[in-house]
Structures are given as C-alpha cells and as structure tokens.
C-alpha cells in the first residue's frame, strides 16, 4: 500500500467517525443547562450592556455635577462660611494658591481673594449674618499680601502698578463697604426688622 492510499483510508475512517446531530444537540443542551445552573457571569445583571451604560452615564453626570458645583462654589459671593459649599470653595482656593509660583502671581491671587471675601461680607451684611469669620479671613489675607509684597520682582514692569494696587488695598479699613441701599431693598430681610 502506498502512502497516498494509506492517508486516504485514514481520512475516510475519520469522515465516518462524526458525532450525530441529535447527540450534538443533546450534549449542548445538557452543558448549557449546567452553565445556567451555575450562573455564568455573562448572564448576571451587573455584566449586562444596559447596566454598564447606566453606570457610565451616571458617572459622567456625577463628574459634570461635581464640576458645576465646584465652579458655582468658587465664583458665587453667596457661598459664605455658613454654606455647605464653603469647604469646597476653600479647597479650590488652597489649590489655586499653591499653583502660584512667583511672588507677583501670589500677590495678584491675594488681591483677588480679598475682593471675593469683601463681596461675601457685603452679602452677609445684607442677610444680617455675622461677618466675623469673613473679616478675620480678610485680615489674614492682608497679612499674607503684606509679606509677599516685600518679595515682589522689581525688574518686572507690571510690578509698579501691582504695588499701587497693593498699597491701596492695604490702606483700606478691614471692615468692608456698607451695603448698598438698592441691595437692601431687594434683599430678603423681614419688614419688621427694617422698621426697627
């Protein structure tokens, strides 16, 4: 027998030895039943596409909401020491302060923050709240501004203007401006209090 015939016979024997269709179906039925009984992870709820989509949408929404809250807390003068968003505001400001590398940039940051604290103090006065904490904060910022103003970069042409602004700010009294009469009218102050 030549090798071609030998190989042909082997292949013929192989073709005859094929599992029947009913057997295939029966066996796969048994195996899939076993798989289902064991709760294969692909069929469990937390691996479904819908659940993953819901999780990713929820996470994106949560991230957007966090950014929006942070931006509001940072920018709004109505977020004062008694607000629940005040710690968020302070944290953002701490990070911003650390990011200012030069004395000039630090001074600009303190000027801006003092302005923000003064706006907050105005709102507090309109709403007849205590301004003690805000004023203490302004005092502390002014101290830091005074320290940093000694280290300003004199070679920078913008420093002269900055020095003028610092001087003006430091000369101002610690207590902020009195609330505007128009602001008082539109505020939510009880009427009997105004009469008094």
């Amino acid at each position: 027998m030549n090798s071609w015939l030998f190989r042909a016979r082997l292949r013929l024997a192989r073709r005859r030895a094929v599992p029947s269709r009913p057997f295939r179906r029966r066996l796969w039925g048994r195996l899939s039943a076993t798989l289902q009984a064991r709760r294969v992870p692909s069929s469990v709820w937390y691996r479904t596409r819908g659940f993953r989509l819901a999780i990713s949408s929820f996470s994106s929404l949560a991230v957007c909401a966090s950014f929006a809250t942070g931006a509001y807390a940072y920018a709004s003068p109505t977020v004062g020491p008694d607000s629940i968003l005040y710690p968020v505001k302070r944290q953002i400001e701490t990070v911003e302060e650390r990011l200012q590398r030069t004395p000039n940039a630090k001074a600009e940051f303190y000027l801006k923050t003092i302005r923000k604290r003064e706006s907050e103090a105005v709102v507090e006065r309109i709403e007849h709240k205590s301004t003690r904490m805000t004023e203490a904060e302004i005092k502390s910022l002014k101290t830091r501004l005074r320290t940093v103003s000694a280290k300003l970069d004199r070679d920078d042409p913008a420093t002269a203007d900055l020095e003028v602004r610092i001087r003006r700010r430091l000369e101002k009294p610690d207590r902020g401006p009195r609330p505007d009469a128009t602001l008082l009218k539109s505020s939510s102050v009880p009427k009997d209090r105004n009469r008094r």
Partner: protein
Amino acid sequence: MRDAREFEAFYRRHMDRVYRFLFFRCGQDRAIAEDLTSDVFLKALDHFDAYDPSISRSAWIMTIARNHLINFWRARKETLSLVEEKTDGEEAILEADRLLLARSLLHQSRDVAVRELAWLLGLLPAKDRELVTMHYLDGYGYKDVAAAVGMTETAVKVAVHRALKRLRSSV
C-alpha cells in the same frame, strides 16, 4: 467560571475531534463514544477556569479525554498492565494509546480495510504513530499537533512525512 460564550466556542472547536479520538479507542461503538464525550465535556466545564488557550488549544482537553478513556477501560476490568508497569509518564500514555487504538481497530472492527489500517499503524514507532494518528485520524491541524506534543510545526510536518515514507518502504 469564565464566559458561557467562550465555553461554547471551545465546545464547537473540539467536539468532533474529541468524539473521534474516543470513537477510535473504544471499539468504534457510537453509544460508548457519545457517553464518554459527554463525560469529557462535563469534566472540562467543571475545570474550565484552568484552561489557558495561550499555552495549548487542544492539549488540555485531549489529556482529559485520554485519562477518562484509561479510566473507562480500567473500570471494565480490561487492565492496562503494560501501562501501569511503566514508570515514565509520556511513555505510558503512548503505550496506552497504542493498546487502545490497536484493540479498537484491529480486534473489534469487522471492516478489513480498517483492520489493515490498524496493522499499518502498528508498524510505526510510538511517537510517529501518535503524530500520524492525531493528524490524519483525529483530524488535528499541524499547529495543534505541534502544541500538544511540544514540537514545532515544521518538525511535526517533517516527522509525519518521514513516517509515511518509512511505512511505504517497509510495506
């Protein structure tokens, strides 16, 4: 437990080959081959976490099938004394394979052509017979045979070609 789809793909890939492997070694009895195939796949499902296709796609399931077949013959009191006397694992497996294949093809087949085939296979050395059987009878590609026996694909091709050449010259 890994993904059900992964197991389904595995089942579809290996079903025919496992059945064929068992069929030719259990006396070409369809009922017995079907029973053994079912048992092998249920065992595979039990231990599917241990299966790593990157190591070898077929060696894992073939080892389960071979061990199950040996247990089957052992349970039928047709002791494989030769196998049990051997100390070396690989040699014992090859010897078991030879005995099972010879018993099935040579002694339990009424077809003269199949008996002749068994006689011809018996002329080959154990290692060559394993390669020829895996490729031509069980239907494995050279790549799968190479992974199962720990050789390169080219080495398997050369070994099979030489085995057939030797067979032709000896006959």
